[in-house]
């Protein structure tokens, strides 16, 4: 998750196409094959089915942050993005998760059929084991897509650079 979160951070914080393609190329060079596949899917606005609805996300996040729900809602109203609010409000813990992007996606797919209590426990554990930006990306995987202004063409270009296969063939 560390590498994927760093990639999203770079893509999110630059308006320059060259920087984005460079960051993606660098990421693809080192990512495992399952991570590559999931990255392409996620950046093409495909994501695993939503395992938890946002009402429960809000409730469980406020519980973990030890604040009343109304205070969470006020903060969300001001921050304007649910995943960002959750990432800001929950403190980092000392332990850090080293699970990869594809491991997380796999867990989320499995999570959908779990009980509410299991879902709550899973989120409470994992929210705390990530740093701020990873927690933001992790929650985005649940709540919505990554709108980071990246066309299919740019992604293909980056992948082509990384794996050394011609752009046209890849596309």
């Amino acid at each position: 998750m560390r590498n994927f979160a760093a990639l999203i951070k770079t893509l999110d914080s630059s308006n320059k196409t060259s920087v984005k393609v460079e960051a993606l190329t660098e990421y693809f060079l080192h990512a495992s094959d399952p991570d590559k596949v999931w990255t392409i899917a996620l950046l093409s606005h495909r994501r695993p089915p939503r395992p938890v609805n946002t009402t429960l996300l809000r409730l469980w996040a406020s519980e973990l942050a030890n604040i009343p729900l109304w205070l969470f809602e006020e903060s969300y109203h001001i921050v304007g993005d649910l995943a960002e609010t959750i990432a800001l409000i929950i403190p980092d813990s000392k332990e850090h998760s080293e699970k990869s992007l594809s491991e997380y996606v796999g867990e989320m797919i499995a999570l959908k059929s779990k009980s509410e209590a299991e879902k709550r426990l899973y989120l409470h554990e994992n929210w705390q084991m990530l740093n701020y930006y990873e927690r933001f990306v992790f929650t985005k995987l649940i709540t919505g897509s990554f709108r980071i202004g990246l066309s299919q063409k740019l992604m293909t270009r980056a992948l082509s650079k990384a794996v050394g296969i011609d752009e046209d063939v890849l596309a």
Partner: protein
Amino acid sequence: MKNKLLVFNDKGIYCAQADVYLDPWRPVKNAIITHGHSDHARFGHRYYITHHYNIPILKHRLGDIVVTGKEWGETFTINGVTFSLHPAGHIIGSSQVRVEYKGEVWVFTGDYKTEDDGISTPYEAIRCHTLITENTFGLPAFRWLPQAEVMQDINTWWAQNKAEGRTSVLFGYTLGKAQRLLKYLDSDIGPIYTHGAVENMTEVLRTIVDFPPTIRITQETKKEAFPGSMVLAPPSAHGTVWIRKMTPYVTAAASGWMAFRGARRRRAIDKGFVLSDHCDWQGLLESVKATGAERIICTHGYSDIFSAYLRELGYDAVTENTQYEGDEEEISVGDEKDAEKKEEL
């Protein structure tokens, strides 16, 4: 009910017994000033009382004023009311005002932060019955990282920009933030240039604090001098002709507002560093608790939300309106709103 020791009227926070205002926003006779930011230290009062560190700042900004300087903790009594100034840790000279009359103690925090920045005299919680606290960042979404971590990120960013042959332009408020950044910039990386407004204020403060050397940017400064260097500038310099001389450059802002992704994006700044001179959520809660106050008056910032939460915790908390909304850090919000309007046009 007996008269309140301090009331909020149309001119400021007023102590009728002593005929003294705290940080008044309209001209008055006697004004105690917490710190040099323009929404707290205004022009036109007859007599100013402030910590002596603030005197050069006030004179620089307000010209020839009649001002008396006080030490930390030095008491002075006016018509039976005892006043003293205590460090608030917001910027150099920033003070809380303790007001005592017949055994009843009120404290006005001014603007404050709990982290010791190594420049401002560190904040101390003052025991009181009634606390008037600011709430600029009174939301649980605000959680600051230690200054050392943020400054390390800033220096890493600078070194990286230098390696790419770019100028690093860092925006921070002229009084306070700019000097805090300057103090911890690693001058081994390269030269530090300053915008005139930052340089003027830093010059004033060099008599109190040691800072790394800076070079004032003038008309004569050569374009070739900039790549690899650091430029400290006020946020208002962003998007002006002045900055073009630094091309190729990258921009960053250091402010509590940078905690929000949207804040940085809306202002079209390349990088945001979360560094504030105000308390974060935990800092506010901890200091309220440490004062032992039962009654809390919440002023500028997210005061409605913060006071509602304090009431849940069992405090007698209310909100009062002030005109400190123009805080130099809060101005960034106004800028954002303006920027949004511009985008809509």
